C-alpha cells in the first residue's frame, strides 16, 4: 500500500528535485502554502511570447508536495500558457480520481497513487493550484498566494 504512494519516481524527485531555484527572468510568480502541514512552495516562470521557457520551484514540505512541484516544472516547460492551463486542470482532476488516463503522462502518472490517500491529495495539488491561481490573477491583475486548508 505504501509503495503506491511512494513510488520510486516520487522518491527520486524528492531526493533529487529538478529545477530547484529561481527562474532567471521572473514573468510569473506563484506562492502556495498549506498552513496545516507547513508546506510552502514558490514557483517562478520565464515566459517568452506565450511560451513557458523556464519553470523553477523553491520551498519546503513533504515528499509528495516537493516531488509534485519538481514534476510540474518538467511538465510545463515548453507549453503555451493556454496549454499549461489545460494541463493543470487535467492533472488536478487526475489526482482527485475524476479522470481516466488516455495519454502518456510521464512522471505525473506516478503521483496518481495519492488517490488512495485522501489527505495527501492536497500535498500533490499544492504547486498546481498555486500556479493556476497565479495565472488567473495575472489575467485579472490581482496578486494573492494560494492557501490550502
Amino acid at each position, binding site marked *: 500500500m*505504501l509503495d503506491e504512494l511512494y513510488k520510486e519516481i516520487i*522518491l527520486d524527485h524528492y531526493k533529487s528535485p529538478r529545477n530547484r531555484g529561481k527562474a532567471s527572468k521572473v514573468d510569473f510568480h506563484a506562492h502556495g502554502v498549506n498552513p496545516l*502541514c*507547513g508546506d510552502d512552495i514558490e514557483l517562478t516562470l520565464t515566459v517568452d511570447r506565450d511560451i513557458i521557457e523556464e519553470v523553477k520551484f523553491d520551498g519546503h514540505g513533504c515528499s*509528495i508536495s516537493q516531488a509534485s512541484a519538481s514534476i510540474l516544472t518538467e511538465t510545463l516547460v515548453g507549453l503555451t500558457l493556454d496549454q499549461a492551463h489545460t494541463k493543470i486542470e487535467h492533472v488536478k482532476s487526475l489526482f482527485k480520481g475524476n479522470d481516466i488516463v488516455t495519454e502518456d503522462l510521464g512522471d505525473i502518472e506516478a503521483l496518481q497513487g495519492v488517490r488512495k490517500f485522501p489527505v495527501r491529495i492536497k*500535498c500533490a495539488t499544492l504547486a498546481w493550484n498555486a500556479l493556476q491561481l497565479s495565472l488567473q490573477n495575472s489575467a485579472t491583475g490581482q496578486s494573492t498566494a494560494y492557501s490550502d486548508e
Partner: protein
Amino acid sequence: MDSHKSIQNLSIPELDVDAVRKDFPILQTTIHDKPLIYLDNAASSQKPEFVIKTINNYYSYEHSNVHRGIHHLSQQATQQYEQAREKVANFIGANHSHEIIWTRGTTEAINLVAYSWGQNNLKQGDVIIISTCEHHSNIVPWQLICELTGATLRHLPLDSHDKSFNLNKLAEMLTPNTRMIALTHMSNVLGTITDLSKVVELARHNGSLVLADGAQSVPHIPVNVAELGIDFLAFSGHKMLGPTGIGCLYGREELLEDMPPYQGGGDMIETVTMSQSTWNQLPYKFEAGTPNIAGAIGLGAAVDYLEHLGMESVRAHSHKLNSYAISALSEIDQISIYGPRNPSVRGGVFSFNHADIHPHDLGQVLDSKGVAIRAGHHCAQPLMAELGVGSTARASFYIYNTQSEIDELCAAIKSAGEFFSK
C-alpha cells in the same frame, strides 16, 4: 526532584496496564492488519467500555430532556446530569458544583470567558498575557475580544534554551493594567507543565486573574483548582476518556456571578418578556438551550473511571513512560525532541522531527505499521514559528500505552528512515 518523586511513588499503586487495555475495545482492533498502537492521545483519547456503556444505557433506557420535566425520565436524566457536574467539581477540587459550566470543550470554555468576562472588564490600555506556546484556542479568542474592546494582547516569550515559561520574564511584564494571564497548564506540543501556583502568586500581586488551559493537564495529572488558586480552568471531555462535544469551564463563583450571559435561549433565563429578560442563577446562566446531556453523563463516567485508577497512579504511569520514551527516542540519531528532557516537569506529549523525513511522510509510514501519531502544527502555529519549523511529528501517551509500544514506535521510525534513504 526526580529521586523525591520515585520515593513518593512507592506508595502509589501502579496501573495494571494489561487490565486497563482490556477495558478499551478499540485497542483490540487492527489497522492495516497490524495491532493498533494509538499514540495520538493529545488530540483525543480512546474510550473505555464503561464510558461507552454508560452512554449506550442512557440513550437506550434513560433519555429525556432535563430540568423542566415532572415525569420520571426527565427527573432521572436531570439527576444523572447534575451528578456528573458534581463528579467533575470534586475531581478538580472546585468548591461548588455550580462553578462548573458545561461547554463543548476547552475551546468554547475559553471563548466564553474571553467574551463574557472580557466584554465587561476590558478597555483600552488593559493587557492580556498569553504565551508563545499556546494552542490556537487560547490565542484567537483573546485576539477577538481585544479587537472588540481595544485591550492589548501581549505574549510571554519562552526561555530560549529549553522553551519553558520564563517566570522572571512574566514578573517583569506584569503591570497594574494586566487583567488576565491565560496560560496552558501543559503544552500540547512540548509537554511542559506550567508552575501555576507561582503564576498565581505573581498575578495576585498585580490584581490580575489567571486562566489555565487544562486541556492536556486535567486528563493526565492531579489538578486541584483550589490549591492552585487559579480563577478559571478550561478542559475537554474527549481527551480524558469522555465523549466528544462536552467540556467544562471552571470559574470562581464571584467571577461567574458578575459575568453577563454568553448565549441566550432556554434554561439560561429566569423571565422573558418581549422587551427584556432576566438571567437564571449559576451555572444555568451560561448554559443556553438543551445541553449535551449524554455527553455530560458520559464525562461523569470517565471521571469515575479515572478516579478508580487514581490520578496519582495515572501520573506515575506517565512519568515512567516519559522516562522510557526520552531514552528510546534519543537513541535514534536523526530524531530531535522538542521540550524538556526531565520527565518530572513534562507530560507524555513528545514532539520531534526526523532529519531526513518530513513529519507527514513519517506519519504516513508509521500508519502503515499500525502506529497512529500526529503530524502538523498541532494548532500551535506561533510555537512552530518559534521553533523554526513548519510542523512536527507528535507521539502522545495515555494510561493504556506501554513501553513495548514505545519500542514499536522507535522501530517504525528506524524503518521509515531506511525507507526514505533506500
